[in-house]
């Protein structure tokens, strides 16, 4: 697959493999609860143990997300977050960190309205490595996936329990970076995945691809992260981190500290999983 863009994502997963450990992928919504706090959370994530960062682009109508991430979007939008500010957050992050991959995650409309070409150019310039656009399935690859690859960005695909063997090759065709395995049929942050089911599903997917597979959509605790990380190449945690921001009383400092603390605990869980696995 010579047309696959090579980004910090591949470098990171290769390094982790050499080190014999799994990846912790953390999700936060850009601008939640406000731009300044969100920037401080983002900037400290690598130090706290995040290997890959998913930065949510807020949207009024997040159809695939549960209450935690819906509310995160609402908080960010209420605080005045825009696409330009989200991209500016990445640029600022890159002044200090040139190795941790950043994946922008969200829905198509804010990208489409920003302008696809302009978005891809600005995202690449800002230091973004990949995109996850929830409502762009392979059937709509010509919209953004192919242009993103052209622009040097990974288009990260979601595979779900409903993606059967017949459909999987279609999902994998233009996938790059890593594969995001959605561990439940449902929205983000609602129910806990069954570790044994997930292990079987990930093993099935791995027969079709050499891409790293990260598992997400219901991972909340370090213990869960540890168990699930064993099944794949990494775990994604979002709602649990975002919940800390929602609960933080003083907004700023407590949210920053809380998110980084949980990230450290999750990273520890994921590291143990790596050792178990090797």
């Amino acid at each position, binding site marked *: 697959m010579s047309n696959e863009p090579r980004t910090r994502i591949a470098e990171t997963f290769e390094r982790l493999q050499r080190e014999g450990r799994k990846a912790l992928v953390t999700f936060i919504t850009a601008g939640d609860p406000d731009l300044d706090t969100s920037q401080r959370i983002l900037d400290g994530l690598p130090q706290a143990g995040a290997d890959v960062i998913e930065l949510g682009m807020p949207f*009024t109508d997040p*159809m695939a997300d549960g209450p935690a991430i819906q509310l995160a979007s609402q908080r960010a939008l209420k605080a005045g977050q825009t696409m330009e500010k989200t991209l500016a957050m990445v640029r600022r992050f890159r002044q200090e960190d040139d190795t941790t991959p950043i994946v922008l995650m969200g*829905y198509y*409309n804010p990208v489409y309205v920003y302008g696809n070409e302009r978005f891809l150019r600005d995202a690449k310039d800002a230091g973004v490595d990949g995109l996850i656009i929830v409502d762009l399935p392979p059937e709509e690859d010509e919209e953004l996936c192919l242009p993103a690859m052209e622009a040097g960005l990974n288009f990260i695909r979601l595979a779900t329990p409903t993606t059967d063997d017949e459909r999987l090759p279609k999902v994998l065709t233009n996938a790059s970076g890593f594969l995001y395995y959605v561990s439940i049929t449902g929205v983000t942050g609602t129910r806990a995945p069954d570790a044994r089911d997930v292990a079987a599903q990930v093993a099935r997917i791995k027969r079709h691809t050499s891409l790293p597979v990260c598992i997400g959509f219901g991972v909340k605790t370090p213990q869960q992260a540890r168990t699930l990380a064993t099944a794949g190449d990494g775990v994604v945690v979002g709602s649990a981190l975002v919940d800390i921001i929602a609960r933080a009383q003083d907004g700023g400092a407590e949210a920053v500290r809380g998110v980084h603390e949980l990230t450290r605990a999750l990273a520890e869980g994921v590291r143990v999983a790596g050792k178990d696995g090797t």
Partner: protein
Amino acid sequence: MSEHKPNTYTGLPDAKGRFGNHGGRFVAETLMPLILELEEAYRAARADPSFQEELDDFLKHYVGRPSPLYFAERLTEHLGGAKIYFKRDELNHTGAHKINNVLGQILLARRMGKTRIIAETGAGQHGVATATACARFGLECVVYMGEVDVERQQPNVFRMKLLGAEVVPVSSGSRTLKDALNEALRDWVANVENTFYCIGTVAGPHPYPEMVRDFQSVIGREAKEQILEAEGRLPDALVAAIGGGSNAMGLFYPFLDDADVEMFGVEAAGRGLDTGAHAASILGGRPGVLHGNRTYLLMDEDGQITEAHSISAGLDYPGIGPEHAWLHEVGRVNYVAATDTEALEAFQVCSELEGIIPALEPSHALAHVMKMAPEMDRDEIIIMNMCGRGDKDIFTVAKHLGVEL
């Protein structure tokens, strides 16, 4: 508008579910296999004469079709221009056109072996129609409705409960129809095995816009036959109100290739197009992607969806079906608008002159008829879709007229 005229206006969507640049399948991966399964099941049903026979039988004996095409003589005299006919879909069981589509989808759900039906509703008409059909076939029914709409549409909430449906108030986002749709999609993602999502309008991911249009096209097919019988010729103009656009697509579609028939889709201008408080997606919005399809949407400059406003809860949606978006761009249908005030006036005129209390949705269509009919010749003909009856709206109207009930 740069597109050249197609040979036919009835050949879309294409294999990707597109109407020109609009439509498509913008959904999460979890739903994609379900949508493909639905499309396949719908194709199979459409090719099976027994499916259409069963649907026709229910439309005749349960819904009461065909609905009459009625010459509104006193309104015609009052306006002093074109002859005005109403397509009386407000006489259907449950009081609106919504049931035409719901029955089609519920029969399809049964063919697919689905046992649980979910739906979104704004004003409650689609929710009531869905609850009705589910009661008739003994299916579990869950209706998502924004908290704001639950408060302002209590009678319909109670109707749905009487019919055995569970009504789930939606507290996310702006707590209206668009959020009810989001929540229904979230439910569907979480219950993929047994659940069928019954969408109420010509929007959503392919094949919904096509499927809902096909089920609603019974309106236009009947109207065509009826006007030929009554007048011996096709009408000069068709007029229908547009929220998502299902009653309009249903009336327009069978006439799209009749070049001499002009069509007017009437959007809700709310307090006025220049006030921002309206629901006119084509006249006051621009293309974007929401709820599985690309179409005209109301949004801010950053692509965030904004709230729609209309006196009519059924028109209060920040988008429009993708086929309308295309028909607008190729210039086949004229999209116009009527304000809350104009709709209220039409509501009263119709009640007084014709003894028909219209829903606030077709009152918007009627408001446009009242603008255009006087400008037309007396031998010209307009068909307007009277897509719902106004019983549900009397409280809203009373409030606006300053009457206490």
